[in-house]
């Protein structure tokens, strides 16, 4: 363990999770092909190559304070080109997973969006775009974000592409049982 806070032998859940994720990139030789292949790299605070080094070393705060993994759009170019064949895109997703679970995010947009999405899917089995966006805006509690999407919302509505269906407020969700079982099994691991 290299990380400073872990020196006192007090490992948090995200430390343990990060060690697990670190196995994915253990063989990274820092060639930088991932960074060179990444369309979002110039907007990242640290490059993918640097991120893997920090993940390998278990530098929890540096990893999770970075916005790098949130900027991964899952284009899979890095995964395709990695000369070591490492599952880099999946590793970005694993970091999003830990950050969401542990509340390591400054910009709430990504985790709140994903949460709204999954809630709607649990409820109806399928995405209802209008209700999902409504839920997302409500959770963000930021009218400016909602307003910035209004022109698109109107355009889609005029074209009849988003149906305003009555949300159901009560009753069991379509995929309640599936979600419950997933949580049960994951907790048991």
């Amino acid at each position, binding site marked *: 363990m290299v990380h400073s806070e872990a020196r006192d032998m007090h490992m948090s859940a995200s430390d343990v999770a990060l060690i697990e994720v670190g196995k994915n990139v253990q063989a990274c030789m820092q060639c930088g092909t991932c960074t060179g292949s990444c*369309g*979002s790299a110039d*907007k990242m605070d640290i490059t993918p190559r640097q991120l893997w080094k920090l993940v390998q070393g278990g530098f929890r705060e540096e990893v999770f304070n970075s916005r790098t993994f*949130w*900027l991964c*759009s*899952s*284009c*899979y*170019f890095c*995964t*395709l080109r990695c000369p070591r064949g490492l599952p880099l*895109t*999946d590793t970005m*997703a*694993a970091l*999003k*997973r830990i950050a*969401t679970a542990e509340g390591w995010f400054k*910009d709430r*947009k*990504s*985790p709140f*969006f*994903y*949460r709204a*999405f*999954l809630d709607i*899917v649990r409820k109806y*089995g*399928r*995405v*209802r*775009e209008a209700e999902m966006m409504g839920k997302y805006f409500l959770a963000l509690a930021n009218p400016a974000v909602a307003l910035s999407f209004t022109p*698109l919302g109107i*355009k*889609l509505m005029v*074209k*009849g*592409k*988003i*149906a305003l269906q009555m949300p159901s407020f009560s009753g069991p969700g*379509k*995929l309640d*049982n*599936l*979600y*419950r*079982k*997933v*949580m049960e*099994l*994951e907790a048991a691991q």
Partner: protein
Amino acid sequence: MKYFYYPGCSLEGSAKEYDISVRALMGALGAELEELDDWTCCGASAADTSSYLLSMALPARNLALAAKTGMHADFLVPCSACYLNLMRADDHMSHDSRTADLVNEVLKEEELSYKGGLRVRHLLDVLARDVGPEKIAAATKKSLTGLSVAPYYGCQALRPYSVFDNPEQPTSMDALIRALGADVHDWSMGAKCCGAGLMTTKEEVALNLVADILDAAQGADCIATVCPMCQMNLEISQKKVSKMRGKDLGISVLYLPQLIGLGMELPADGLRLDLNLALTESFQRLLAAGAVR
């Protein structure tokens, strides 16, 4: 040609015209699409940010539904994100017995199970390899001569599962476009990323990616897409990126089955071009003048 048809959530909403044109085109080509009864969301890119097991169980539920019917057919998917998730669930369950056991324990809740063996196919794969350019050429009634088309593949139809095309420099659309009598726009952006979900959560990043694609497409009459997320991202931000780059980056964007349908003279209600968000005036004039149709 008989397929399980999995439209996916976008095709019920913002990508209605994709669903309509896929059904119309495949029907006209003599393929039978059997929509999967009771299908549910594949998890998109959201499930994997919450739980790995959920990201497996959501797509696997649909594969299990198909397996349960006992019908032997490939699983046809027009959305690239759905395609990737379904492929990934099948791949991981086939190669990792622990994952397969866990997913099947979840599926038991729905009285389902999946043992693998279904073949998941992207719409483009089916058009390029099952249908093929010869059949498209034979079915073309109105040659799209003089129309220049920029084939846009995006990411997840090609990567990480590179089944039917080169994941760096894809060409599977070329022959289909030429079969219609149209020209292929010479560019190298076909496999680059549109930003996907970042358009919602990290707009500044996605706009940059879209601007590069639209810029490289200039000179073509339209872009052809095979994914609802790509289509939407390329359509909705044209004004913003034009302002950002200080030049007009507007261009018409069509779903590939809409484009093929134009050549085959499918009726307008099978194409629903009126639902597209980015059809330039010049393209509409071409359509109205019957130059395209």
